[in-house]
């Protein structure tokens, strides 16, 4: 899960002045000891020597990063060239995540807009309908999608019944299936922040634009989109970041050719590969990219807030 950080802390109230640090102690202990420290430890592991079949030897080395970025031939004695295998997997992850973000935006923006412009009485029901899938177990949703897309699954049956196709389409284990899975997994993440932004949008701006001779699509482009941009950006981050490190969709809906970074990392620990430092290095690289995206977003937001 990834996301921007709402729930701010700018409140001026100080009725329990002085107890702040004490009250935060449990949060610091649990998140500090059981997340922050492990991530630091993971960074250390990425510089250690691998032990076969899992674990590490406490000897410092760059081997994991070397393996990720450089190719030194079969026996490691050739002059290094760039290793494309893992960069390729990374690139595929970025491409898939970007595509999923694009499609989510394509469907999510009109949906968020439509829901946010319903009369107040029905709006919360609409919102409720959109949020329910968000709270349904991701594994179950992915499994459902797998079932739907099977060669002999309901989608193929339906298409054959209508006569659109004669032979079942082979959908599962393709990049397409992974894409559908990512899109399906994270679509609600796109809708909710955009919805929040549209709900705050002042429709007098649309009226002003119409008054100044904008047709509705020009208004959308010149007035509405800039106004709700923060919501759109937040939605894109909320979809892009977890898609990038997704495991379930590529694992259940994809195959060997659709490998993504999440599966690559998982395989180092749970699978046959068993190379912990390499898995830790790959996780570090993923973390760096994600933190970079979040940092850029935070700085851009701070600049806009002034």
């Amino acid at each position, binding site marked *: 899960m990834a*996301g921007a950080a*709402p*729930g*701010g*802390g700018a409140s*001026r*109230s100080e*009725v329990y*002045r*002085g*107890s*702040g*640090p004490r*009250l*935060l102690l*449990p*949060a610091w202990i*649990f*998140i500090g000891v*059981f*997340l922050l*420290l*492990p*991530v630091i*430890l*993971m960074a250390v592991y990425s510089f250690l020597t691998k032990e076969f079949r899992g674990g590490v030897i406490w000897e410092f080395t760059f081997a994991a990063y070397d393996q990720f970025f450089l190719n030194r031939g079969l026996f490691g004695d050739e002059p290094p060239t760039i290793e494309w295998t893992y960069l390729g997997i990374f690139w595929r992850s970025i491409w898939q995540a970007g595509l999923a973000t694009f499609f989510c935006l394509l*469907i999510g923006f*009109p949906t968020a*807009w*439509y*829901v946010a*412009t319903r009369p107040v009485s029905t709006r*919360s029901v609409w919102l*409720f309908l959109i949020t*329910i899938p968000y*709270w349904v*177990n*991701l*594994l*179950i*949703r992915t*499994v*459902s*999608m797998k*079932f*739907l897309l099977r060669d*002999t*699954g309901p989608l193929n049956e339906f298409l054959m019944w209508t006569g659109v196709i004669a032979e079942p389409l082979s959908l599962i284990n393709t990049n397409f299936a992974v894409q559908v899975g990512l899109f399906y997994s994270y*679509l609600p993440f796109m*809708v909710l922040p955009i919805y929040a932004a549209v709900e705050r949008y002042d429709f007098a701006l649309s009226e002003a634009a119409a008054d100044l001779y904008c047709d*509705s699509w020009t208004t*959308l482009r010149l007035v509405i989109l800039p106004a709700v941009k923060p919501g759109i950006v937040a939605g894109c981050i909320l979809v892009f*970041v977890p898609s990038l490190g997704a495991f379930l969709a590529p694992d*259940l809906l994809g195959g060997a050719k659709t490998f993504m970074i*999440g599966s690559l990392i998982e395989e180092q620990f*749970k699978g046959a590969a068993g190379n912990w430092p390499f898995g*830790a290095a790959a*996780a570090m690289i*993923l*973390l760096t990219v994600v933190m970079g995206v979040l940092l850029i977003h935070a700085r851009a937001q701070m600049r806009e807030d002034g």
Partner: protein
Amino acid sequence: MAKTDLRRFAGFRVTTWLCLLVLYAPLVIVAVYSFNASTSITRWGGFSLKWYVDVFTGPEAPRFRDAAINSFVIAIAAATCATIIATAAAVAMNRTGRFRGKMASLALINLPLMVPEIVTAVASLIFFITIGFKTGLMTIFVAHLVFCIPFAYLPIAARMQSVPDMYEQAAMDLYATPWEAFRLVLLPLMIPGILSGFLLAFIISLDDFLITNFVKGAGIETLPTAIFGSVKQGIKPNIMAISTLLLGVSVVLVTLSWVIGRAGQSRN
């Protein structure tokens, strides 16, 4: 005279219905097929509850029962602790003025939302192995607790922001100690936020597969890991029945949290 509605854009309504179709179709189809009498999972063979019976009495029943118990116990424990920790943190962030490390604390609370799940999973595994913490129910609980904190925090902090601090000031003006002001005044006013925070954390804990799969240790399963293990061998009808049951639990909980949220709103 009919004016153009500035809120209306051609195609947006169709897109919304399409969005709902995409979101619900797979779930509805699985729910429908879970009542399929046929053993071939895609041929419709009439209505039957036999896969539900199978879930509770079939050969895999004990495995799923244990997994379900683990899942619910962990979810309740993790959500309870996370709610308490998040409430304390929300008080610190909203009611104690400025202090050193406040912004860092906010970042820390949100850290579990920012670190990709797979990274958290790997880091937790490495950490538990390194310090020699035996993987099992305890490690799952701790890991869940950590990522439940921000989810419990969000609605609790939001609610606390909407409760003005004048009530607690009034309480203290009337000789209540800070603890009494919290217990007798702020806490009762926070109930809706705390309940939705708890429910959110509960659902999130119940939902987790990836991190659990890394830190669970041999032989211990939660529902998602058990389902995942099963699905790896192919989707069987009993999985669809379990999925439908879990779907029902999620829907009930979300509805509950929605109703509580509305009640809280209308009371103010």
